[in-house]
């Protein structure tokens, strides 16, 4: 027992150091986002903020007003929420139908969904952005239609994996009692699938919120910038980079994510595990 305690203590100390290394990059950005522009250079990045170099919230104000952070945040939020809601509702209905009807059409569709999960985006990059232009899908609301098509692979796969474990008797009983398929789905199937909704919702949210290339190629980026596009614009094209506002921007991106994560970490971690087991 004494030996186990000692080993545990050594491991604890080791992990404490290791987790500092994990947090440090974010802390460094945070410290530097409060420095004056002139005080941020490659040799002073590791220094703490002192009275001389403290810039207050100036960098944050620049990022918010000049760099259009608020609108980018808004567009990202609209795209993510709409897409994820669409994916959850449409794909769960589709998955239920595919599993329960299970004719040849459904089998082919299911195989295509699974196939789409491994295909890299570069394969469709050019043709998809062209098609989106022709069909007028290049606005923050319409792009959700593409996200639905693209996110369908993982979502249908996970939902149908779960539907297969639900015994049909419950649904048949509901139908005999006079429920239409729509009522059966919303009153019986949907409540049973709640854990899967959370898992799929988390995985798709993480993907859509952080996606860079699809909105970059599809949206008119002079009008609509999402957060990853905004961050990329700080670097690309301009030449000199305003490091202060950029780090302020990064902080404003990270903080909401970290807060959301700390509040619902149990669900996020379970969702990721469920996604991996099904995937």
């Amino acid at each position: 027992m004494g030996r186990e305690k000692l080993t545990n203590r050594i491991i604890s100390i080791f992990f404490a150091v290791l987790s500092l290394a994990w947090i440090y990059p974010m802390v460094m950005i945070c410290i530097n986002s409060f420095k004056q522009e002139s005080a941020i250079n490659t040799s002073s990045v590791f220094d703490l903020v002192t009275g001389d170099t403290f810039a207050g919230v100036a960098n944050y104000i620049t990022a918010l007003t000049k760099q259009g952070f608020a609108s980018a945040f808004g567009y990202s939020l609209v795209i993510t929420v709409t897409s994820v809601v669409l994916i959850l509702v449409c794909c769960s209905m589709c998955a239920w139908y595919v599993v329960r009807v299970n004719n040849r059409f459904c089998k082919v569709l299911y195989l295509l969904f699974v196939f789409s999960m491994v295909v890299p985006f570069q394969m469709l990059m050019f043709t998809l952005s062209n098609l989106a232009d022709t069909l007028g899908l290049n606005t923050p609301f319409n792009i959700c239609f593409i996200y639905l098509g693209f996110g369908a692979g993982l979502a249908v796969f996970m939902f149908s994996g779960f539907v297969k474990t639900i015994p049909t008797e419950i649904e048949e009983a509901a139908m005999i009692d006079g429920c239409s398929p729509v009522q059966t789905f919303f009153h019986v199937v949907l409540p049973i699938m709640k854990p899967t909704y959370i898992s799929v919702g988390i995985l798709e949210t993480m993907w859509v919120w952080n996606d860079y290339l699809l909105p970059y190629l599809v949206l008119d980026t002079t009008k609509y910038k999402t957060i990853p596009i905004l961050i990329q614009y700080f670097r690309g094209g301009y030449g000199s980079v305003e490091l202060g506002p950029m780090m302020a921007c990064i902080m404003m991106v990270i903080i909401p994510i970290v807060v959301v994560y700390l509040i619902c970490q149990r669900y996020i971690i379970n969702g990721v595990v469920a996604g991996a087991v099904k995937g």
Partner: protein
Amino acid sequence: MSKVLKKWWPLFVLPTALSFVFGFVIPFVQGTYLSFCQFKVISDTTFVGLRNYVDALSDSQFMSSFGFTALFAVTVTVLVNVFALAIALALTRNRLRGTNAYRTVFFMPNLIGGIVLGYIWQILINCVLSNVGADLLALNTVAGYWGLVLLTLWQQVGYMMIIYIAGLQSIPTDYIEAAKVDGANAWKTLWKVKIPNLMPTITICLFLTITNAFKLFDQNLALTGGDPNHSTEMLALNIYNTFYSRVGAKWMGIGQAKAVIFCILVVAISLIQLRATKSKEVQQ
């Protein structure tokens, strides 16, 4: 029940199927066709047969990014899985305090997007390198390579650790206790009991790390942008650059041919990997 349900397809299947056709099927088929054509816009194409593929495969930059990506994928797959499993084993020990806090911290980088991660690490690595007087990241291939490895480790170890922890927790405790009673030490228990029972989890983690490594784009774009002189350009970024930063009528077709080769490669790797490790799984 399926008979009643069958005629409800316009409501249940149509929205998803329609957007899937527009978002995946049509672009995929069109993309495959275009890889055999020369074109600048989709409406004006000339069929050129396999010429794009020949050009793509004889493009030295494409081949060098293939090598770079393959080397990167091997390094990252091995390191991520070894670290993730080691951390998962440590965090599932009895009576170790703070395990939940560590899990929370290690997983956190996964929530931040690749572009943001890339810039955080670019700032960090550039500063470390300039303090030791070495070349800046953008000028150094070796630093770029290890920078990418470091960033990927930082991001993915937490994700795989979570999956390994779930796998370890699903091993029945009787197995481990039985091994203890039979006098097996920790090392023997790991190799004879834990790892064989973990094979399904290992399959998934290897699959995820390999495909992630091959598909890596955002982090590559943000951290090195392929500099210096395309030497840290990975396959996905190489295809992107062939499309959007090369001038000349032939490059679109070559880009699409590269994309098809890349797609076949990723699908093939996924299938081979799944088959190879599936056969080693044991039934519980």
